[in-house]
């Protein structure tokens, strides 16, 4: 009997009440994703929700483009640039695509060097990734400025269907925001790597989690490039 009471008391002590209890109930001893740090699992779940946001944007773009009776502006011509007297269709967008893919490559290598605990190389590659991201945003600013000067507005444009402007600014704007946030996160984590924050714990998962976010930004661009610019 006495033994039972002691055991009961021990159990009560092991299961805390209140907010701590709520956090423990949802986390302790209930591991679904084995060998995956919780931060990484949470990043994946965030990316899943972000996938739905971009899917809904692209689906609404599809709906308005299919249902308009006015001709859709030809993206190949709208985004063409004249370089040295020759007009290249969609060239700026192609360059932006290559820049973002390159940034994904440097990011993947940064994750690798992080787990090898080569701090200098990891931070350098992350900063290169951030620089590519900044270049991308810079080119997007150029693209927006060019289109706004040509009279493209969210409510109309001189080339065709009015919905072109609203979907363009919404989709590329939201993606550009993601890139900008990514550049900030990359810079912060790179500085933390340099300072040796992860050296103390020996855990470089933060670099991989940042990498997941960055690759997702590249992934979304693959879909925007294909469905908005090439279609």
């Amino acid at each position: 009997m006495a033994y039972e009471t002691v055991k009961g008391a021990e159990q009560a002590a092991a299961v805390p009440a209140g907010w701590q209890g709520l956090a423990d109930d949802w986390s302790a001893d209930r591991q679904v994703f084995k060998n995956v740090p919780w931060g990484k699992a949470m990043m994946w779940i965030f990316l899943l929700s972000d996938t739905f946001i971009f899917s809904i944007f692209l689906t609404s773009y599809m709906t308005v483009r299919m249902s308009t009776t006015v001709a859709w502006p030809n993206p190949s011509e709208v985004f063409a640039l004249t370089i040295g007297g020759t007009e290249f269709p969609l060239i700026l967008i192609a360059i932006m695509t290559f820049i973002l893919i390159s940034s994904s490559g440097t990011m993947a290598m940064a994750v690798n060097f992080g787990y090898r605990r080569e701090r200098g190389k990891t931070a350098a590659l992350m900063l290169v990734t951030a620089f590519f991201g900044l270049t991308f945003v810079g080119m997007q600013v150029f693209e927006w400025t060019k289109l706004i000067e040509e009279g493209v507005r969210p409510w109309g444009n001189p080339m065709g269907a009015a919905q072109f402007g609203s979907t363009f600014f919404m989709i590329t704007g939201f993606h550009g925001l993601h890139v900008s946030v990514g550049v900030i996160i990359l810079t912060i984590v790179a500085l933390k790597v340099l300072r040796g924050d992860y050296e103390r714990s020996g855990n470089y998962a933060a670099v991989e989690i940042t990498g997941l976010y960055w690759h997702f930004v590249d992934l979304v661009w693959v879909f925007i490039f294909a469905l908005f610019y090439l279609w």
Partner: protein
Amino acid sequence: MAHAKGQQHPISIYLAIWGLLFVLSTMSYLVDYFGFQSYLRWSLILLFMLLKAGLIVSFFMHMRWERLALRCAILAPPIAVLVLVGLMTLEANYTLLTRLVFFAKDF
């Protein structure tokens, strides 16, 4: 085990995927450059898009080395988007038809 210490793979894999992504991007740009139209254009665009997305998710985001529990939890839900796309296709066609019948006198 490699997983316990995080994702650790040879750099050469990343470089190979990087190169493939460059080739696929160039090919999708060439679809526009050569001015392919209609079903040939759309199928090529979708093919290159899905190949690129697959390479990024499976190699750069390490999905192919994750356990099935995580892969299913993340990759299965987006399939629901296809239902939305299907419904909105019906809706868009209906809207277009209504507009043509009632509003667009010039068409």
